[in-house]
C-alpha cells in the first residue's frame, strides 16, 4: 500500500515522538541529574552536568549495599521461579491428561484463586510466614512466591500440554517408561516456549514486587533492591537527589537490560497470555 496523506503521517509520527519523549523523560532526567552535585541540580535541572560525577554511583552503590541487595533479590527470584516451573509443569501435565471430575475440581480450585486480590490474603499470610519460620528470610520469601505463583503457571501449562498429542505418551509407556520419567524425558522438553514465558513473567513480577517483600523482610540485611531503594528514599527524602537518582538508575538497570535482551519473548508472552484468557 502506498502512502497518501503525508500530512496525516507526519502528525502520527509527531504524536509517537512526543509520547516516546514522555515515556523516557523520567529516565533521561534521572540519568542527567544523577551525575550532578545537589547545587548543580538546584541551578539548572535541564543542563548537562559540568563533569559527570560517577562518584555518585559509587557512593550510592555502597549506600544501598547494592551487591547484597542484588543477591537477595536473585535468591528470591531463582527459588520462586524454579519452584513455580517444576511444580506447575508436573501438575499441569496430569491435569491436562486425566479427564475426570476430580481433575476438573483441582483445576478450578487453582484457577479460581487467581481473582483473589493480594490484599485479602496478606494479613494472614504474614502470620503463616511467622508460624512456618519463613518470616525475615529471602529463601522464605521465594518459597511463599511459589504458593502465590502456581495457579497462573498451572493455567498456562495445562492449556499448553493439551495441545501436545497424547499418542507420544502412549508410545513411551509401551516402551516401559514410568510416569515421572515420561514427564521429564518426553513432556518437559516440549514445554520450552511456555516455560520461557512463565519464567520471564514471574521473574519480572518478583523483581518488581514491593508490598510482600516489605512485609516479609523487615531486616535491612535481607532487603531486596526495591526495599533498599525505598529505605534510602525515606532517609534522604528531598535532600540528596544525586544519591537518590543514582540509586534509582542502578535499581532499574537490571530490568531494563533484561527487557532489551528478551524483548521479543516478553512482548509475545504478554499478547498471547492476555488474548488467551
Amino acid at each position, binding site marked *: 500500500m502506498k502512502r497518501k496523506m503525508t500530512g496525516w503521517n507526519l502528525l502520527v509520527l509527531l*504524536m*509517537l515522538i512526543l509520547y*516516546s519523549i514522555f*515515556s*523516557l523523560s*523520567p*529516565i533521561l*532526567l534521572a540519568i542527567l541529574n544523577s551525575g550532578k552535585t545537589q547545587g548543580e*541540580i538546584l541551578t539548572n*535541572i*535541564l543542563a548537562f552536568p559540568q563533569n559527570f560525577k560517577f562518584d555518585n554511583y559509587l557512593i550510592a552503590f555502597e549506600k544501598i549495599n547494592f551487591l547484597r541487595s542484588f543477591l537477595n533479590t536473585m535468591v528470591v527470584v531463582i527459588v520462586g521461579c524454579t519452584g513455580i516451573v*517444576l*511444580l*506447575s509443569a*508436573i*501438575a499441569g*501435565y496430569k491435569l491436562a491428561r*486425566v479427564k*475426570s471430575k*476430580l*481433575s476438573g475440581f483441582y483445576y478450578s*480450585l*487453582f484457577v479460581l*484463586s487467581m*481473582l*483473589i*486480590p493480594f*490484599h*485479602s*490474603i*496478606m*494479613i*494472614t*499470610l504474614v502470620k*503463616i510466614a511467622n508460624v512456618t519460620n519463613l518470616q525475615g528470610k529471602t529463601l522464605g520469601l521465594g*518459597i511463599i512466591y511459589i*504458593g*502465590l505463583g*502456581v495457579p497462573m503457571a*498451572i493455567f498456562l501449562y495445562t492449556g499448553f500440554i493439551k495441545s501436545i498429542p497424547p499418542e507420544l505418551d502412549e508410545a513411551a509407556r509401551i516402551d516401559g517408561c514410568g*510416569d515421572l520419567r515420561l514427564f521429564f524425558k518426553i513432556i518437559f522438553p516440549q514445554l520450552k516456549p511456555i516455560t520461557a514465558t512463565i519464567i520471564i513473567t514471574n521473574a519480572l513480577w518478583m*523483581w518488581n*514486587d*514491593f508490598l510482600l517483600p516489605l512485609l516479609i523482610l523487615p531486616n535491612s540485611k535481607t532487603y531486596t533492591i*526495591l526495599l533498599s*531503594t*525505598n529505605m534510602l*528514599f525515606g532517609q534522604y527524602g*528531598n535532600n540528596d537527589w544525586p544519591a*537518590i537518582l543514582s540509586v534509582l538508575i542502578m*535499581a*532499574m538497570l537490571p*530490568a531494563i537490560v*533484561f*527487557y*532489551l535482551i528478551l524483548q521479543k519473548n516478553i512482548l509475545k508472552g*504478554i*499478547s498471547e497470555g*492476555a*488474548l488467551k484468557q
Partner: protein
Amino acid sequence: MKKNNKKLTLFILPALLFYSVFTLAPAIGGFWYSLTNWNGLNKNYDFIGLKNYAAILKDTDFINSITFTLKFVLIMVVLQNILSLALAIAIESRNRSKTLFRTLVFMPNMISMIIGGFMWMFIFTKALPYIAQQLNNAALMDISWIGDPFFSFIAIIIVSLWGGIGYLTIIYLAALQGVDKTLKEAASIDGANAWQVFRNVVIPSIMPAITIGVFVTLNNSFKVFDVVYSLTGGGPGRSTQVIAMNIFAEAYSLNNRYGYASAKSMVLFAIIFVITIVQLKLMRKKEIDG
C-alpha cells in the same frame, strides 16, 4: 479411572501443598479474621460476627478511599484504553520505526512503580517548578503537585498512565495485527473512508481485545498501591488514599487492627469478584454471538 485419579493427586500434590499454605489458607483466614476483633498485639481475640462490616459502613476514611479509588478507576479505564489504542494504531501504521516505538512505549512497564514514582517525584517537585520559573509563569509556579489534593490526583493519574499504557498498547497491537486485511481493502474499494473502515471493520474485529483491555485496567486500578505509596503516600492528609493503602495503613502503619483490616480487604475482594464475573459473562456472550 481410580488409579488415574490417584496418580493425578500424586502429581498435583506438591503444587497443591504450596498453594494451600500460601494462598488458600490465607484467603480463608482473611475471611475468618474479618469476623473477629484480632488486633495483632493481643494473642486472644473474639468472634464478633459482622460487627467489623457494620463499622465499615460508618468509616468515613474508608468510604472516602473507595470514592477516591472509583474516580481513579474511571479515569484510568477511559484514558488508558483510548491512549493505548491510539498509540497501537499509530505504531502499526509505521514501517521501519515500528519496533523502535514499540520498545520505547513499553519501556516504563519494566520498571517498578516504586522506582517510577520516585523518579516522577523528582519531576514534580524539582523539574516542573524549575521549568515554571524559567518560563516565569505564575500559574504554573503556583501548582504544588504533591502538596495539593487535586494536583496530587493528577500526578497519580499521569504516573499510572506512564507505567500502564505500554502493556495495553502491546495487547492492542497484537489485536490489530489480527484484523483481516482483505476486509479492510474490500471496504475501501466500496468507498469507505479511513474513519468508516476504522469504525465498521477494525473496531468490531478487535472488540475482544478492548474487553480485555477494559477489564485489565479495572482490575489493576482497583488494586493500585505502589504508585500512590511512592508518590504521595496517600496524602496530603488522606486525600489520595486508595483502598489498598487504607487496608495497609489499618493493618500495619496506623494501628494493628488486623480483624478490621481483613473485613476491609473482603470488601476489595467482593469488588474484584463482581468485576470478574461480569467480565466472564460478557466474554462468554461475545463468543456465542461471534
